């Protein structure tokens, strides 16, 4: 490589030239975008290596357990850079999402030393952490000997970072001072609206501004377009039905899943008057404008219907709408995005989030070397690579959201995505109360919702019964 090009890229990596300046400069030197990308990776690797002893664990080998996901694909596409940077060999096992957490649970509960690090959701660490299966990563994050100076832990979005930290006390606030960092956020999903522009234009409706408007808009779309249903939300008997749109709207009315008393006891909080009012509206919306077989709907059905043009909008993960706007989906290129504020009195949306994170197995044979991988995979360079070159959305680092190329990429193909993110990122966090019965509570909640939608039980009565049942379970577990 010529010195001029090297100097220009080095200047960019130092921050003295912006991205536009870099591309313009490389362009005048006759360097194509693809070549520029390769040079950037090479120089970026060199730049990282200059500040930190990345070769400390050279010659070692790690094994990862990964879920079949675009985030894992982005990492695998960039993995050679890590190998070159550190001299550490990395092997990985990729399992389909349907069985992924069974594999993780089996590996961890049997104390398997096969895997050093793995992908997880923050909710799962509420089980893995107290069981002693995963490691508190604060020890490594706070050690300047082990963490490279450019890692920029404070660059992570606070709500996301804190959602991955818990002190292990049932009901303890996420991200508290004494919290353990059970996992490092990798990329996350905010729950907002993805809608079909063509259908909205045809029906002459605007993006709904609150839950009442969402009910009315969904009904009008269903009536005016014909052959479709108004809104896609999940409905299977699973925790996954509660956590996306439903809980995001619920939290916007300042409602909670559980109360935590002064002495740390937990009790059900979903039978308040406000909660009953919200449930009534949610159930009405599904009955009027949801899919016919809503009670079987998971991530896959909600997304597939939007992509195939069977639904007009979804209130679900933003990246689900992102994926459906590409590939061979019939509606590719016709989808837009908007933040959703369910409560007319709320100032901004408060999306509950799912965070794909990286955790370190407590049975790892070499935790220091594993941390080298974790800090690289969650570091700013890989985040930028994933966000600009692959489908690593939503990035968890604030600096990536400020990156012009990334914002341009989104604005070009995903109208409204950046505005959606900017409007709701501040309020984005996990809205559940961390506690070991998380999956029991949410599954029963989903089951109650199913009964309400099927008109098997009135809303008030259903929520009272749900609260009683949850209180009983919490008491039996010594939590209530």
């Amino acid at each position, binding site marked *: 490589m010529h010195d001029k090009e090297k100097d220009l890229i080095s200047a960019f990596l130092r921050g003295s030239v912006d991205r536009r300046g870099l591309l313009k400069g490389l362009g005048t030197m006759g360097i194509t975008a693809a070549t520029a990308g390769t040079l950037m990776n090479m120089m970026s690797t060199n730049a990282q290596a200059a500040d930190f002893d990345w070769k400390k664990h050279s010659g070692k080998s790690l094994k990862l357990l990964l879920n079949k996901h675009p985030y894992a694909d982005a990492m695998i596409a960039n993995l050679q850079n890590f190998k070159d940077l550190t001299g550490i060999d990395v092997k990985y096992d990729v399992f389909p999402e349907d069985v992924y957490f069974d594999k993780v649970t089996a*590996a961890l509960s049997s104390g398997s030393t096969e895997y050093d690090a793995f992908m997880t959701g923050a909710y799962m660490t509420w089980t893995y952490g107290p069981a002693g299966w995963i490691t508190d990563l604060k020890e490594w994050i706070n050690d300047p000997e082990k963490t490279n100076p450019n890692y920029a832990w404070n660059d992570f979005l606070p709500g996301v970072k804190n959602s991955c930290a818990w002190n292990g006390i049932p009901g303890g606030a996420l991200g508290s001072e004494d919290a353990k960092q059970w996992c490092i956020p990798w990329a996350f999903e905010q729950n907002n609206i993805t809608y079909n522009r063509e259908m909205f234009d045809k029906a002459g409706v605007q993006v709904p501004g609150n839950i009442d408007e969402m009910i009315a808009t969904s009904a009008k779309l269903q009536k005016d377009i014909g052959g479709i249903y108004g809104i896609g939300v999940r409905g299977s008997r699973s925790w996954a039905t509660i956590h996306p749109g439903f809980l995001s709207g619920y939290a916007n009315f300042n409602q909670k899943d559980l109360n935590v008393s002064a002495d740390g006891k937990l009790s059900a909080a979903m039978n308040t008057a406000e909660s009953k009012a919200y449930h009534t509206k949610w159930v009405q919306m599904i009955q009027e404008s949801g899919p016919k077989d809503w009670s079987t709907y998971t991530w*896959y059905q909600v997304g597939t219907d939007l992509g195939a043009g069977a639904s007009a909008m979804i209130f679900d993960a933003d990246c689900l709408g992102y994926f459906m706007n590409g590939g061979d989906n*019939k509606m590719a290129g016709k989808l837009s995005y908007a933040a959703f504020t369910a409560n007319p009195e709320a100032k901004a949306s408060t999306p509950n989030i799912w965070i794909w994170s990286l955790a370190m197995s407590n049975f790892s044979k070499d935790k220091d070397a594993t941390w080298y991988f974790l800090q690289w995979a969650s570091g700013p360079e890989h985040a930028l690579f994933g966000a600009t070159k692959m489908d690593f959305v939503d990035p968890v680092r604030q600096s990536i959201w400020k990156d012009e190329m990334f914002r341009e990429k989104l604005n070009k193909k995903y109208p409204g995505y950046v505005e959606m993110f900017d409007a709701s990122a501040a309020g984005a966090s996990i809205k559940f109360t961390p506690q070991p019965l998380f999956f029991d509570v949410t599954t029963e909640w989903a089951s109650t919702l199913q009964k309400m939608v099927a008109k098997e039980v009135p809303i008030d009565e259903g929520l009272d019964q749900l609260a009683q049942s949850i209180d009983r379970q919490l008491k039996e577990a010594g939590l209530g």
Partner: protein
Amino acid sequence: METTSTLEKSLRFLALSLVVIFFMFPIFWIFLMSFQTNETILQIPPSIVFTPTLSNYAALITGKLTTSAGTLDIAFMRNLGNSVFLSVTSVALSLVLGVPAAYAFARHKFRGSEDIAFTLLSFRFAPPLLVLLPLTQYFQWLGLSDTYFGLIWVYQLICLPLILWIVRGYFEDISADVEYAYRIAGHSWFATFRKIALPLAGPGIAAAGLLAFIFAWNNFVFALVLASADKQPVTVGALAFVTSSGIQYGQIASAIVLSVTPTLALALYAQRYLVEGLSLGAVKG
């Protein structure tokens, strides 16, 4: 002689046709789906008229899957190979161990024989997940974790009791007098087993082997827990088409067609043995 009226014949034909259509339609629909793209599969309303494509089969065979999130590597053919290897070797090992054992249990009454036979059968009662977690630890200590040898060993939990108990019943149904006559002619115990008992029990052994093969082929959880991604059978591999960025219905359908074909062909070829072997071996009287 009993005669059947034309009306009765027609009604019977209609009823049978309806039953066949009811049971065969999903398979027929999956077969059609395997020649369609996601877009045509998901069109509203669904249509039976489409331009067929071999792209799904091409993706499976080449190992490159194009999704909305880009091109992904898939290991379906490797999964298929793993299923064939694991099922065939497990059943073969079970036959080698199980048939002589079944003969011994059927012909020779010895102390504890029933207890041993029942213990072997009880392997079928244990919920796999209950057994698998302790097994994972033992396998690590023994160095069998993530090995084909370890998996074939664990697959004996599925195949061995099945073969042993079906074949045992079959041996018991064969008259011992034939064997005694052969022994009186001066032949050894092993020669009697090989020349008389085995050929007579042939259909039963074939039926047991086939059933064991189907059970082994359909197993899901053993390899999932005990082995890494490169040793997974087709039952796990087929799930790879359900991704966060979308469900690849066409590839799922073609994967089903490809994975069902070996067992279907085997079952069709040997269905006479299957029914005969089961009815003679498992049901006494």
